[in-house]
Structure formats: structure tokens, C-alpha cells
């Protein structure tokens, strides 16, 4: 695909173009950063309230013990999927367009998974009493965590994913940090010198680096597919109607990649404009990202349909009751927002003109993210709210505390992402050079 890209630049322009972000940023950068900090303060206030007053400030109540905070957890883990998909799976498939977007997608993954990791702790309230089972160590009664539980598997899955994604991201950045070091003077040169580990770019270093990168990609590929499968088992391994279904792992993975790709687009478009990278992150690359979003949207659409079919065809009245409640009952609003945002609006991308219209694609990408949040909310709340004791049935509403903590998570994520955009290479310069025309002498 990107063989057809008409480059107006050569590899000599790459470092100057990409590292423009290290100079004075556009005023909109400070505006975005200020907003992120306000959101973080809102989140911190609500977390403080929860620690002081208890989990009652969230909307959780019997029988909805997993409310908005677990929705946020699944949402952020899902966002984290696109980064490693783009950097590992597309690397193995030799999809050249990923070389322009992989760095920011990986950064997004790392910060999204860190954000996600906070939510199980926030969800527990005073987590130092509740999270003792997370490290693989026995308690004082010599009682171990139950490794037959999907919750214990999830701890392994998320921490492995965070570690491997972080290593992949940082390892990819080492040669670029050396490029920054070689442009800097004084203290900044020293700092980037330490961060780049003293990389020199010798042929032998590149040889081992490429081998290591390939192995890491090969290890990360099944990992991407496993993480959201394991998150889905948090639900599917229970006997709860609406959760206990074998379609969950592929359905969750496709949904995660959908939300992740939409988030990559949502972040990339403003970053590309803010740091003037239009010559490097080309319209063809943005279009490829949209095509991946459209593909996963189609898979998710199919999964929604099959899920309903299976619920009806199973003849299980409890299962069908949950699905009826989702589509035409008290949770119909959330359900139809999810269907329209994740399945119907993305259909516009079948038109090439619409895929290349940045304003339209940006708007639809934001809608996909809204839809994916509603999907998780819909799955979690509508299955739990009516349990096997009709006396405890009711209607679940998110509380102000839930909303404050969710807003805080967006601020926290943006805070770190914006710091990354300011001090690190947003596009992988060494990999971008690989997809540009090779510097060959005239005799060829």
C-alpha cells in the first residue's frame, strides 16, 4: 500500500521534521495539558472521597457489584490493544503503514494499560485490604490465590501485557533517543545519552536489535489476542446470563481492536496537526488505520448479531430475558447507542471519500469510542442488575463519583500522553526511514 505513497521528503528530512516537537509547542498543546490536569484533579478528588467515605460514593449496589469502574477498566484495556497489534502483528505482516503510527499507538497502549490497572484498585475502595491476592504469594495462613479463577489469570495477563508493551515501546525508541542525543548539547545531551543506553547504530547492533525486535513481535502477537480473551473470561467463566457464552473471547478482542484503532485515529489527527507532521503521517496512512477500524467494526457487528441469535436459539429463558431487556427494556438506550456508534456509523467508511475526509473520520472515531464504552457498560450492568432474586431487582444509575472517576481517567491518560508527545519522538524515525525511498547513488 505505502509503496504507492508519493514522498515529498527524503530520509535526511526525517529527524528535523519529527523532532520539531522538542521545540516550542503550539499554544493548543498547553490548553490540552491544562484540561488534562483539571480532569486529573476531578478524578483525584473523587478517589479521595472514596478512600475517606467508602465505596458508597460510587453507584455500586446489590446486585450490581461491578459497575462503572469495571466498565472503565475493560474500556481502557481495550484501548490498549491497538498499540501492540499495530507494532507486533502488523510488523510480522510487513504492513508498511504501521511504521508511521506505531510509536504513538504503543505510547497510547502503555498509558491506557496503566490507567486500566488503576481501576480494579479504585473499585476495591481501600485497596490495601483488598488487593493482597495480586502478588503470587501466600497470605499469613499459607493460603494461596486460586489459580483456577479468571480474576487471578487476569492479573497475570494485564501485568504481562503492560511489561511486554512497555519493553517493546522503549526498545523501539532507543535508536531514536540516540538521534536526539546527537542533536543536543549540555545537560539534555547527557539525559538523552543515558536514556538511549549509549546506542551507536553499528551494523552489529542493528543485527541483534532486529533479531530481538522480531522475537518480541512474535511473542507479543499471541499476547495481544490473549489479553482481552482473558478479560472476557472474567465474565464468560461465570454462570451469569448474558455473560456465560463462548463467543466472548473473539468478540472482546475484535471490540478492543476496534476501540484501540479508533483511539489511535482520534489522537493522531490532532498530534499530526499540532506538530506539523503532515509530510510524514500521510493521508494514506490515516486511511489504512480507518480501514482496520472498519474491518473490526464489521466483526463486532457480526458478533452482536450472533450473540442475539445464540441467546434465542439456546431456548434458555434466562439468557433470552437478558437480551430482551438490553434491546427493548430498561437498558435500550445504552444498547442502541452501542449499536449505532459501533456498527452503523462506521459503515460510512465504505466510501473512500469519507475515509479520507479527516473531519468526518475524526467524528466517527470519537463516536466509536463512545459506543465501545457503552458496550462494556451494557454487558456489565444489564447482566447484573436483575439477578436470580427478583426482590433485589432495580435500575442502575452511575453516581457522580463514578462520573468523576471516569473523567479523571481520561485526564490521567492525556496527561502522560501529552508529556510523551513533548519530549519523545512521536514517530519512529528509524522505521520511517525504512519505508521512504532508499538513499542510493545515481549509478543505480
Amino acid at each position, binding site marked *: 500500500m505505502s509503496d504507492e505513497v508519493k514522498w515529498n521528503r527524503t530520509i535526511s528530512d526525517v529527524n528535523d521534521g519529527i523532532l520539531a516537537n522538542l521545540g516550542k509547542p503550539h499554544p493548543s498543546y498547553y490548553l490540552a495539558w491544562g484540561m488534562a490536569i483539571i480532569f486529573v484533579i476531578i478524578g483525584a478528588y473523587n478517589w479521595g472521597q472514596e478512600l475517606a467515605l467508602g465505596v458508597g460514593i460510587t453507584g455500586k449496589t446489590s446486585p450490581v457489584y461491578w459497575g462503572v469502574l469495571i466498565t472503565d477498566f475493560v474500556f481502557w484495556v481495550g484501548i490498549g490493544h491497538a498499540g501492540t497489534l499495530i507494532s507486533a502483528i502488523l510488523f510480522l505482516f510487513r504492513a508498511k503503514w504501521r511504521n508511521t503510527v506505531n510509536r504513538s499507538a504503543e505510547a497510547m497502549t502503555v498509558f491506557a494499560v496503566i490507567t486500566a490497572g488503576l481501576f480494579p484498585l479504585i473499585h476495591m475502595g481501600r485497596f490495601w485490604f483488598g488487593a493482597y491476592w495480586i502478588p503470587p504469594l501466600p497470605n499469613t495462613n499459607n493460603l*494461596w490465590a486460586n489459580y483456577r479463577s479468571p480474576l487471578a489469570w487476569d492479573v497475570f495477563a494485564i501485568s504481562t501485557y503492560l511489561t511486554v508493551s512497555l519493553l517493546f515501546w522503549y526498545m523501539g525508541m532507543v535508536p531514536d533517543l540516540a538521534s536526539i542525543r546527537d542533536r543536543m548539547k549540555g545537560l539534555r545531551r547527557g539525559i538523552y545519552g543515558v536514556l538511549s543506553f549509549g546506542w551507536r547504530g553499528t551494523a552489529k547492533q542493528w543485527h541483534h536489535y532486529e533479531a530481538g525486535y522480531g522475537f518480541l513481535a512474535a511473542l507479543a502477537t499471541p499476547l495481544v489476542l490473549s489479553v482481552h480473551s482473558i478479560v472476557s473470561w472474567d465474565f464468560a467463566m461465570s454462570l451469569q446470563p448474558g455473560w456465560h457464552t463462548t463467543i466472548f473471547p473473539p468478540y472482546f478482542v475484535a471490540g478492543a481492536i476496534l476501540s484501540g484503532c479508533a483511539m489511535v485515529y482520534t489522537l493522531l489527527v490532532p498530534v499530526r496537526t499540532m506538530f506539523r507532521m503532515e509530510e510524514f503521517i500521510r493521508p494514506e496512512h490515516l486511511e489504512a488505520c480507518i480501514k482496520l477500524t472498519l474491518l473490526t467494526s464489521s466483526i463486532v457487528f457480526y458478533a452482536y448479531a450472533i450473540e442475539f441469535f445464540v441467546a434465542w436459539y439456546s431456548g434458555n429463558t434466562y439468557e433470552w430475558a437478558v437480551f430482551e431487556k438490553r434491546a427493548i427494556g430498561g437498558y435500550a438506550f445504552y444498547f442502541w447507542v452501542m449499536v449505532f456508534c459501533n456498527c452503523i456509523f462506521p459503515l460510512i467508511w465504505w466510501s473512500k471519500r469519507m475515509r479520507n475526509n479527516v473531519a468526518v473520520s475524526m467524528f466517527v472515531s470519537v463516536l466509536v469510542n463512545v459506543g465501545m464504552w457503552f458496550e462494556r457498560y451494557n454487558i456489565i450492568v444489564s447482566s447484573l442488575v436483575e439477578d436470580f432474586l427478583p426482590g433485589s431487582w432495580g435500575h442502575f444509575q452511575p453516581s457522580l463519583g463514578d462520573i468523576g472517576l471516569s473523567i479523571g481517567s481520561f485526564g490521567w491518560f492525556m496527561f502522560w500522553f501529552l508529556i510523551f508527545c513533548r519530549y519523545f519522538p512521536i514517530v519512529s524515525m528509524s522505521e520511517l526511514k525504512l519505508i521512504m525511498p532508499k538513499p542510493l547513488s545515481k549509478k543505480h
Partner: protein
Amino acid sequence: MKRPGGILVIYKYLDQLTDAMVAMRGRSDFKDNEVFSPTSYHEIEEALDAGPSQVRWFTLAGALTGTLTGFGLGLWVDYDWPQVVGGKLPGLYSVPAYVILGFELTILFGGLMTILGMLVMCRIPNPKQRILDVRFTDDKFGIFVPNVAIDGEQARLLQQFGAEEIRQIESE
């Protein structure tokens, strides 16, 4: 440790560099040369002719250790604190549940060891490395040949491939 002096030859084009690398191959008077490039072109890797990287053994060792640790953890916990499920006797280990632990730790340990392998083989971290020319991380290619003089035969050979610049590096 004293770092040797020598000559540094700088090229603008990739094919000039690879032609020079092929000409140097197997010659004892170019011993311990170093080749620099801004990114990992496969042409350079072919001209280097170094064989498969040893990083793979680190990855394999890490991955196998991870698999054993994952299954071992699950089985040890089952042994140390048996949970009797469905009336089955303790000692009937539910191995399928531990596939998840085995899988995740295979990836985790394999990934960590891959990074370690890469660091060891690339001889980094070493923030005091000698940076011979800052343009090698930008857009230039280069060859450093230690312990030879700028007016020697080696310099003349490397220059004929279209070197943009050639200079003497002092030992330090």
C-alpha cells in the same frame, strides 16, 4: 580501556557503503571494523554476513523457564493447599487451568530475556560510548577501521567507493 585510533570513512549512499563492506569482507587488514547506519537496511545485514543473532538463545531460555514456572506455580499451589472440587480427591491436578499461567509467563520471561539478550549482544547500556560522528543517527553511513593510517592502502580502497569524507580518529 584505551580506545584505538584509526580512519573514519563517511558515505552518503547506502549502495556505496555495502560495496565497501563487500570489499572489506575476509580481509585481515580491516580487522575489527565498525559499520554505522541510521537504520537497519537489509542490504547492510546481507553485506555483514553475520549469521543468525545469538539473541534467539536468550529468548528460548526465557520462554522455557516461563512455561515451567507458570505450570510449576499452579501445581505447587494445588499441592500446598488442595482445593477439593466436586468431591475429587486432592492430588488430581487441574492442569488445563494452568495453561493460562504457563502461557503468560512464557511470554513475560521470553520478552524479558529477549531484551536482556539484545542488551548483552549490543554491549549496552554504556553511556560512555565513543560517538564518532553525530550524523550516523541522522542520514549518513560510515565505516571505522581501527589501527590504520589515513594515507594507507585501506583508506584508498574505501575512498574509491565514493566516500564523502575521510578523517583520522585519534586514540583516546
